[in-house]
């Protein structure tokens, strides 16, 4: 058994409230190493709020409960920086005061020799098709190049799970397909449990994993868990969270 296989991301009975109103029906979900689970739903259904809760950046206006376990650790009481969850946003958010290579180096852990660090950054740049662009100002890169650099920065920090917050939505259609392939390949290769939040059905198709549709909970149904865990082995047991059912090709 591979050591990575203990990397399972488990969401247990997650409920998020805003002004005492439940955003979505209580959520249970298990994401296995290398699996990409897609969470879909109309805007405002709480998709991004769910990601905020998972990575520990929930705005104080929200109230939330439920367990988040990763590699056997309970994350809920940990600060963001100790969760070891990588996240990619709509914008690449490369830091403007650092060059592309320095942005990547920012992701590396301390305690490696300077040569090792440089080599790892060079390898990552090559991997992302950014060879020779390390010295550039991030603002001079194309949208696709920036997105790939952001993924590399996240991966160099050696996260144990990956959250994707609509990272493809600002790219044009052709670029989006290539970027999806690039991200999913890397996530699978590193056997990262990955949670993708999107409202684009094509994203979900490409991800190929289970799809969860978040929807408003039926009125007054607060407290009745209805979500089933996804079983990656059996595509028929996609969790049903909403009366409308999951979207499948």
């Amino acid at each position, binding site marked *: 058994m591979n050591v990575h296989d203990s990397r399972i991301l488990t969401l247990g009975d997650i409920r998020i409230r805003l002004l005492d109103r439940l955003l979505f029906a209580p959520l249970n979900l298990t994401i296995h190493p290398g699996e990409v689970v897609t969470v879909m739903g109309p805007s405002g259904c709480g998709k991004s709020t769910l990601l905020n809760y998972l990575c520990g950046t929930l705005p104080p206006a929200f109230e939330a409960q439920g367990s988040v376990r990763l590699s056997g650790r309970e994350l809920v009481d940990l600060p963001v920086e100790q969760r070891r969850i990588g996240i990619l946003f709509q914008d690449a958010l490369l830091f403007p005061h*650092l060059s592309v290579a320095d942005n990547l180096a920012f992701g590396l852990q301390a305690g490696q020799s300077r040569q090792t660090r440089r080599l790892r950054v060079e390898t990552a740049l090559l991997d992302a098709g950014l060879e020779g662009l390390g010295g550039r100002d991030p603002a001079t890169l194309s949208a696709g190049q920036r997105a790939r650099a952001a993924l590399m920065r996240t991966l160099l920090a050696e996260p144990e799970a990956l959250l994707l917050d609509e990272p493809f939505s600002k790219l044009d259609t052709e670029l989006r397909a290539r970027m999806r392939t690039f991200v999913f390949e890397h996530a699978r290769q590193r056997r990262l449990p990955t949670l993708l939040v999107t409202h684009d059905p094509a994203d979900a198709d490409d991800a190929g994993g289970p799809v969860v549709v978040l929807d408003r909970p039926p009125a007054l149904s607060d407290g009745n868990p209805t979500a089933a865990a996804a079983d990656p082995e059996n595509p028929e047991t996609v969790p049903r969270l909403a009366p409308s059912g999951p979207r499948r090709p």
Partner: protein
Amino acid sequence: MNRETARRGSWSALALNRAPALTLFILLAPIAAGLLGTLLPAFGWLPVVGAADFSLEPWRALWAAPGLGQSLALSLWTGFAATALSLLLALALLATCHHTLWLRRIRQSLAPLLAVPHAALAFGLAFLIAPSGWLARWFSPWATGWERPPDLAGFGPQDPWGLSLILALLLKQTPYLLFMGLSGLSQLPLESWSSVARSLGYGPITTFFKVILPSLYPLLRLPVFAALAFSLTVVDVALIIGPSTPPTLAVQALRWFNGPELTWRLPAAAAAVLLTLLVLIALATWEGMVRLLGRLSRFWVIGGWRGGMGGIARRLALGGGGAVFACATLSMGGLLLWSFAQRWPFPLAWPERWTPDNWIGQSGNLLAMIGTTSIIGVAATALALGLSLACLEHEAHRRPTFAGRSLWLLYLPLLVPQVGFLFGIQVLLVWGGLDGGWPALVWTHVLFVLPYVFLSLADPWRAFDARYEQTALALGASRARAFWRVKLPLLRGPVAVAAALGFSVSVAQYLPTLFAGAGRHATITTEAVTLASGGNRRVIGAFAVVQAALPLLGFAAALWIAKRRT
């Protein structure tokens, strides 16, 4: 459409077209003339006192003046120390609180500290830390054994090291830099950057210094410059709480200038020129150090060190911030107590007997000064507000002109030392027979009010959603009507706050009133500083309380206007 309106050449359109040029003229002409008026006497040309030959004699007299080196060193030390400490404390508070609810609490507690004039805080602090002051009284005699005020040479206000001066500047600069830092943070994608860095494993404080500060500092650069230039050249605070033998260079220059011997005006002008050069060199040195630090820190920034939660650092920063806040609050509280004290002998922590007599006795005097202060403040604020709005409207609706693009020059009055050009302005005013007149007085106040009013209005004005105005125009309103009936009412909050800020800046002015007023117009601030040498704590207390109350009333009115529904 825009150009058509402009071509129509109506009076208001013409005025709008000329607004940036007019504003720059109003600001820069006196500064340029003032610098020239300081430079000429510095090289021996001041016909009023019978000196009409250019020479280096004033400089020789300046070099030969006793204590010059000490004054110079004192100015540099207090200026750099006060600025560096305030910036450090402000950044520490931002670093430890940028991700917490403390940020909002800090924002809310800043307004009163920003409104209180420097001089009032300096009086209060002097009462607080004097050997016979409030602090000593709390611990006497039970802890210290002092039955009479101790004779501690070198401690308390006016200590020869300038420590009390540094503390007084710190009390005022920290809230200012914190305020500018908060407004800078609101222009950055703070939460996104913070989420990214922290999801990569970085602690909150490390995140601030490695990711946020490099983009925040450029937004803070001019405010930090202003704080440094102010600290190096401040006169009123240094008169109240700074060392006196020798004093800082700015105070020394003022002493020579106001001295009984008219010929000392020439070396005084040379000292003002020297101070101006000192500020330029100090700003360049500061910028050089910051850049060097930025370059040296690159290895640390990308070296991968994550940092921890910073619990201890947070407690230190909050402790420092709390101490500054407490010091300022106690200073103002002490002033209020003194103004109502009849007998308050030394070791007692509270006045023995209370009386309204201090106030009643001074009421005539106070009312007259409140009148003068308010007239100057309101006139200068109204002018500054009108010019700022015209410039911002010009920017929003006209093609940028050279003058329109040069509005950063508005910062100039905050960077050039007041002593440096106010000397010259007075020389010119006397020469033109305009000294002591209301127009000169209001104009010199506008120099310092305008930058703050403009800077505080610029952000809300630029962020205004132009579609509101377009909707009004589409509904058939004229451009003027769209401005007066839609844009101005929607932005009345920022306008009211800018006006209150401008008024508070005007109330706090000491040197401009002194020089342009030619001693004929005393404001609450000039009178309070004059009283400082007398040492009557009851009267000083009453004046300083009024000095602090005027701007606070202005801000209260602004808040009321901003919240009121029209």
